[in-house]
């Protein structure tokens, strides 16, 4: 079980969190033309990276804040956790 440092609450066990996918994917803006390819990339296409990965987690059973976690997908090492509005 991972040990994740919520930037709002501190170190907590993984079972308080839920995973929310790749944090580098940006939703296309509303009311803008989006090509099929760009939309597919946003909705479906994900790189299954081995190594450092920036991802969203929600502190579901805690402060309910969505946070960013920089994690190694192979070793589970967590390098950094950030608030939603912070950049790496």
């Amino acid at each position, binding site marked *: 079980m*991972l040990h994740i440092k919520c930037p709002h609450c501190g170190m907590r*066990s993984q079972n308080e969190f839920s995973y929310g996918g790749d944090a580098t994917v940006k939703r296309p803006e*509303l009311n803008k033309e989006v090509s099929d390819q760009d939309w597919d990339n946003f909705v479906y296409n994900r790189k299954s990276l081995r190594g450092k990965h920036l991802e969203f987690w929600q502190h579901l059973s805690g402060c309910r804040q969505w946070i960013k976690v920089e994690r190694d997908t192979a070793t589970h090492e967590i390098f950094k956790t950030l608030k939603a509005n912070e950049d790496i």
Partner: protein
Amino acid sequence: MAQDFRLDTVGLINRDKKLSFEFNGKNYFGYEGDTLASALLANGVHLIGRSFKYHRPRGFFGAGVDEPYAIVQLYRNNETEPNVKTTEQELFEGLKATSVNCWPSVNFDIGAINNFLKVFLPAGFYYKTFMWPKSFWYKVYEPFIRKAAGLGVASIKHDKERYEHKYEYCDLLIAGSGPSGLASAYAAAKNGATVILAEDKSRFGGTLLTSEVNIGNQTGKEWVENIIAELKEMPNVTVKNRSQVFGYYDHNMLVMSEKISDHLPKTRKYHPKQRLWYIRAKEVLISSGSIERPLVFGNNDTPGVMLSSAAKEYLKVYGVLVGKKPLIFTNNDSGYETAIEFKKNGVEPIILDTRKEPNSEIIEEAKNLGIQIKFSYVVVAAKGYKKVKSAEVAKISDDKNELGILENITCDCICVSGFWTPTIHLASQSGNKTKFDKDIDAFVPGVSKQNETTLGAANGTFTLAETLKESFNAGYELSKKITKNDNKISHPIVVEKNKTTHDKFWCVPLPKGKNYKRFLDFQNDVAVSDIEIALKEGYRSIEHVKRYTTLGMATDQGKTSNLNGLQLVSNIENKIVPEVGHTTFRPPYTPVTIGAIVGREVGKHSRATRKSPLHSWHEKNNAVFVDAGVWLRPRYYKQGNETLFEGSKREAKNVRANVGVCDVTTLGKIDIKGPDAAELLNRVYTNAWLKLPVGKARYGVMLREDGIVMDDGTTTRISENHYHMTTTTAQAANVLSHLEYYLQLVWPELNVNVVSSTEQWAGAAIAGPKSRDLMQKLFPNIDASNEGLPFMGYLETKLFGATARIFRISFSGELAYEVNVESDNGNFMWEKIIEVGKEFEIQPYGTEALSTLRIEMGHVAGSELDGRTIPYDNSLEGLVSKKKDFIGKRSLNRKAFIAEDRQKVVGVVPLDKKTSIPEGSHLVKDANAQLPNPKLGYISASCWSVEHDNPFSLAILKDGKNMIGQKLFVMSPLKNITIPVEIVSSHYVDPKGERVRS
């Protein structure tokens, strides 16, 4: 009655307390402090079971966690547990055990015929023999193999014992209380660190209990007792025996299983049987010691052949002689220690040493005691079937290839020592890249991956002085890192006998003309010849060899067999062991009971049970409950002997004819506040929300980004910047998370707060033609007319002083209202509704009637919004705005979603108007078409229409738009049903929706 093999004074058992027990129907006794293994050995019992494949007799091989043979079916307090290691099970009064894997009895075992068929049962035998024909596997081979090869039998009864979970944090977790564990724990504790010291056995001290050493002028045992006593007094130290740290997981999380009651005849009141600890440690010290390796020779699985360290432990801890004519077969000095203990207790051992002329203090001592030692000698084969009777021995050439003349030595046990294998399991589980140490012919931990340090024998350090030095230092350094304290303790002076190097020889060659089985894996019956076959057949990777031969795969996980297996593969392949590598060590290190893993989450505790505040009223009024997500909801209110069908029909009819009331508290509710609340709703829902007036509700559908319907519900504008959203019961938590995702990550500029208010409000849906009259009477202060409170209207009022929210919304398709009051007033509201409703012939209705009402009205719900359908499929396309953008809109113009013959919800009625249609059935055009019959759609929900008094179903049907009036067939191959049906509109009742607006 004296015990033949028990010494009078030696050992740590309590001779004042006799314990009686039963094995295979015979009564024996042992003493407090015995294990089942030591008590059986004291009684001269060596035959415990039969082996897995050949059903050869099996006795004891070890004295602890490494035991491969001596497992039993244990009976305790009317419960039974399979595959219990006798070497770990402590004796208690009234213990009962039977052999596993033998039938009809351990002495006469029919499966033993396999032993004579062994030429036909080589490596990979199951794979080769039983693969053809395929149908035979399930019907003939597998049941046969299961019966013949099975181990113990699991109980099918509910386990009444309690198992606990515990979460703990500490600075240092120390796994193992041998010399390295004690020294590091003591140094760290004295330096102020919080320490958990775990020992899997009942006694602390590990090898210090059996070795002849002196630490600071105390015997090993005295030193252990003093350190443990001092540690127990320290507030920063938790000392746990009977506790096995079995798994090392990510981020320094370890799991430990503590056996609290297994050693007692019965679990004490208020005590759990076992406790599982989840420990997050800053630093982990692995002091798990080492396990003696077997030497491999002919028939080395015969009962009476055992590890020399085990023989010593039985003698020194339990006062038990494993034999009276012991033969010690060793390639190192450890065997001498065992021999000396035998000699000191009046038994004459013979030592066979594979080495030519070794020299050390301990060998000198053995010589001085007059012990007979034969150098350059090996055991070629054990003789005897159910017990060792003698040993075939021979001199071996210096190059270890040639055997001399075979001689016979009478003996009743053969104690083997093939040197030591460090127990590196935990280090390896943590990700440590282990390395091969040529000096000890074994793997030792390399570079740590997590914060783990391996000490003592587990690290390949085999002298006590070195072990203590490295352990005191590690405990001090690691605790200093954490506590910043600097209290160093002085190291005691250690006296131990020096030892010389071991012999790398471990596998005795077969003499000419003999084909003795030489076993590597005792529990899975894997012999040297099996590995040879596997390699001949082309298996190279050690992982493949393991799976093909089952080497190291049984409940002991190859603790004694793995390294010899690797050495053999290396020898045959002409590689060195590190090139072959070892198989992966996976948790758990030892078997853990399912009960401990599951803990308290059994039965109704396996998940949360949520009850509405009206639950007790439902109970009192004969509600039959159903699980709705985690909620318990009334399915119907049973009158007399009514069935579900009769009861729900009555309730639904009464809603259509008079008025009914339904507990809708479980619907998800989300309170939404903020100046941008309308904008959020406008982006989340498919329809327009910016112009919804205060005091009005609107139905909305929300999508995922891929265009699939996520949820639906009504949202009401309570005031300018305040909305009340409802969700389906099942999706409530997901919708809240979904909103939070967009508010926090995608559109943080929106000034909106969302919070779950599901528990804050109790809800009652009042539905039926007489609902208006009831509402007017219940709330005399409001204008309940169609003008005063129109369809989709909302107002807030008081119910006898309690705040009440009234929504004019309908799920049943009737004129209906939903009343919400604060949860604490829920029961009061409900009773008032029932009381006032009497004159309108009110009846409560459950989820079954609710479903009937919505199905015949054609309202889609969870069974249609199943995560695979888009708005069009549910005939909700009218709610999809063309003007504005919203979540998932861009996906809706994908090709498949706009296809002309896209699936759509329709109604289905059987032609005979009688036959009920099972949900999940398929719709096909031709009932007699060749299989696979093309599927046009599926039945999503079925009911008995109370309006039309015939069965009615909803279906998702291909090209549903153009199928109304068509005749199709419903087929359910599982139920062998074919029903001719007609496709009708999904709105089977009141298609224009006049009732809800009346």
